[in-house]
């Protein structure tokens, strides 16, 4: 227990150091652009917490980011590099919007049906990549990325074509009936009851790793041979893991469609999937770590747009900070990668042999 605590302390310190370094470099860039770094960061903070509206927007961002990052963490634990959360999100949004717009049933049936369809759509989209991996050994990094493009263009096709709002000229579907929308918590702000779902999922994740499925997923991440020895059907578990991971993203897509936008529109995923990957890695795939990093990124995003509105510092600074964190996270992962360590050891060993 003590070593575990020490370990997570070390990990947290690493994350904090990376963020601090990114913020320092960001501050230098703000300075170069002729603005005051302290003022810029102060505006980010007040932009995220300064009013009830901003706080509400903070959680509007945090809900999909957290749900998606938690889903991604499941795949990553199994060493399945699902970077297609954006596409899975989009497919979830499409499926649930289609149910809401075209199916004529009472709301109490439509809502669960739409959730189910979003989970299924996201899950199948990711499961497809998992199946391609088990069947053809296709690298899931490539397939999930490509599936992102397909989902994006499929969405564009729908909102410019068959699903376009007949009453307008914009690339969006018609609006969902009010009875189907996720209820707002406060009439004046956009924050909605989807936050409850986020909390439930966070709680669920704390227990997921204790379940047999969680254990199997974790074991697959340790290596295929080990898992086969342990009697696990590796192929099936890979597909199931991918599907669960995608289902989370699909659910986030439902949340965005039914809770925020109330319709399908081009670019609905807003690049959440890519940020969710960084959040999952920065949070060390640990549920608590993910919640904290997702909170941090939501502050950056909401506060960052406010900074752009209120000061002369461009939003690009926020993008730079995000980018730096991504680089640091990747660098750390690479350094920690046991494969590299082993080759290093081997290489040193060989050098020693030659020296003899």
């Amino acid at each position, binding site marked *: 227990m003590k070593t575990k*605590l020490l370990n997570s302390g070390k990990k947290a310190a690493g994350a904090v150091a990376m963020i601090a370094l990114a913020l320092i470099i960001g501050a230098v860039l703000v300075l170069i652009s002729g603005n005051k770094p302290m003022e810029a960061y102060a505006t980010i903070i007040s932009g995220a917490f300064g*009013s*009830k*509206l*901003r*706080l*509400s*927007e903070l*959680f*509007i961002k945090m809900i999909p980011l957290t749900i998606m990052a938690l889903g991604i963490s499941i795949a990553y634990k199994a060493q399945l590099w699902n970077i297609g959360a954006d596409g899975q999100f989009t497919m979830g949004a499409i499926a649930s919007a289609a149910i809401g717009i075209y199916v004529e049933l009472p709301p109490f049936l439509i809502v669960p049906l739409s959730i189910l369809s979003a989970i299924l759509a996201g899950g199948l989209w990711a499961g497809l990549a998992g199946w391609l991996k088990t069947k053809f050994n296709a690298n899931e990094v490539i397939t999930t990325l490509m599936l992102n493009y397909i989902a994006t263009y499929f969405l564009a096709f729908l909102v410019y074509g068959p699903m376009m709002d007949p009453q307008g*000229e*914009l690339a969006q579907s018609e609006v969902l009936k009010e009875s189907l929308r996720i209820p707002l*918590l*406060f*009439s*004046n*702000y*956009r*924050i909605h009851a989807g*936050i409850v779902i986020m*909390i439930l999922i*966070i*709680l669920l994740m*704390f227990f997921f790793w204790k379940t047999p499925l969680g254990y199997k997923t974790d074991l697959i991440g340790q290596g295929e041979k080990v898992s086969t020895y342990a009697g696990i059907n590796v192929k099936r578990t890979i597909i199931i893991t991918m599907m669960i991971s995608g289902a989370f993203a699909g659910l986030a897509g439902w949340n965005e469609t039914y809770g925020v*936008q109330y319709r399908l*529109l*081009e*670019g*609905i995923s*807003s690049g959440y999937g890519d940020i969710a990957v960084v959040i999952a890695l920065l949070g060390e795939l640990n549920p*608590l770590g993910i*919640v904290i990093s997702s909170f941090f990124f939501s502050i950056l995003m*909401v506060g960052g*747009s*406010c900074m*752009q*509105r*209120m000061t002369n510092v461009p*939003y690009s600074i926020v993008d730079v900070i995000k980018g730096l964190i991504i680089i640091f996270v990747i660098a750390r992962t690479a350094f920690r990668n046991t494969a590299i360590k082993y080759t290093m050891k081997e290489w040193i060993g060989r050098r020693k042999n030659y020296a003899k």
Partner: protein
Amino acid sequence: MKRIIKSMAVFSMVLVTVLVSLTGCASPSKSVGASKEKLKVALILPGKKDDVSFNQAMYEGMTAYMEEHEEDIELKIVENVYEVADIQPALADFADQGYDVVFGHGFQFMEPIISVSKKYPDTCFLLGTGYKFEENSAIYDVDLESGGYIMGVIAALTSETGKIGVVGGADASEIFRGHEGYKLGAKSINPLIEIQEVYTGDWTDTAGAYEAAVGMYDSGVDVIWHSGDGIGLGVVQAAVEKDKYALGNVEDQVSLGEKNVLSGLQYKWEAVIAQIFDDIKSGSFKTLSDDKRIYWINIANDGLVYTEINDPKGMLKEEEKKFIENTFQQLKKGEIEIPEITQNK
């Protein structure tokens, strides 16, 4: 395990605190006696303020008005609010921060303004082109038929081949009316003139507009007017390459092709900005009748002008230039009647 439960408890406590603080007070009330303070105004642009087009025209109109009213207006301008996800939060945040007037400069702001304006009845919202409004919102738009008419006159007078062209973005309301005005103007000079017309269907389709313009120039057209943002760049580019004339729109575009941009329409939004602020200050803004909820810029109110004729090829004679100016003055006084143009869709 204990640690997990503990941290979960802490997290849920934080969350509860946040939610409770959110409930504290529902509607942000503003001080009533704010009329003597500066009017807080925000202008949200979807693009860059120096795009030589739609955004720049509004930016210049707003800053021109500001120079005369610095003592009673505080202006904040934001650029590049283009993503759908960013529009509504930007509008709502300004209203929430107690801004009195918020401009959303573009069609895509329509739905967000409708939903935000209901939540902030004390703030006035202005939408740049569109058709939906609420009690505390209005629209400013361009009455393009008279402008199209003068462009048609210039094109027909300049053309030596008797063939002119017009390239538009979406076949939507004001652009359609502009194109029809252009045809009327050109035919008033030469009833037999050949007019080629293309709608690219997309405002940003620079490549499509370029192809269309090249095709027109190759078939003998020697002057083309364009009526949109990105497509305008395509038309001007084609004119430069083919060394023919183009007529600009929205903003003075001579800088884009000094030898090939003959003239063009320039939108002067300041013509209605003053009216908008007068209505807001006098309090009549929220009680406007529906037909007055669209503030039109046109030639009559100096909201539309043509930029100085730039004719390095010498295709226009002095008296023709005078005729153009005359026609412009007549349009201004309402002496040329343009029949009402309706679009059958």
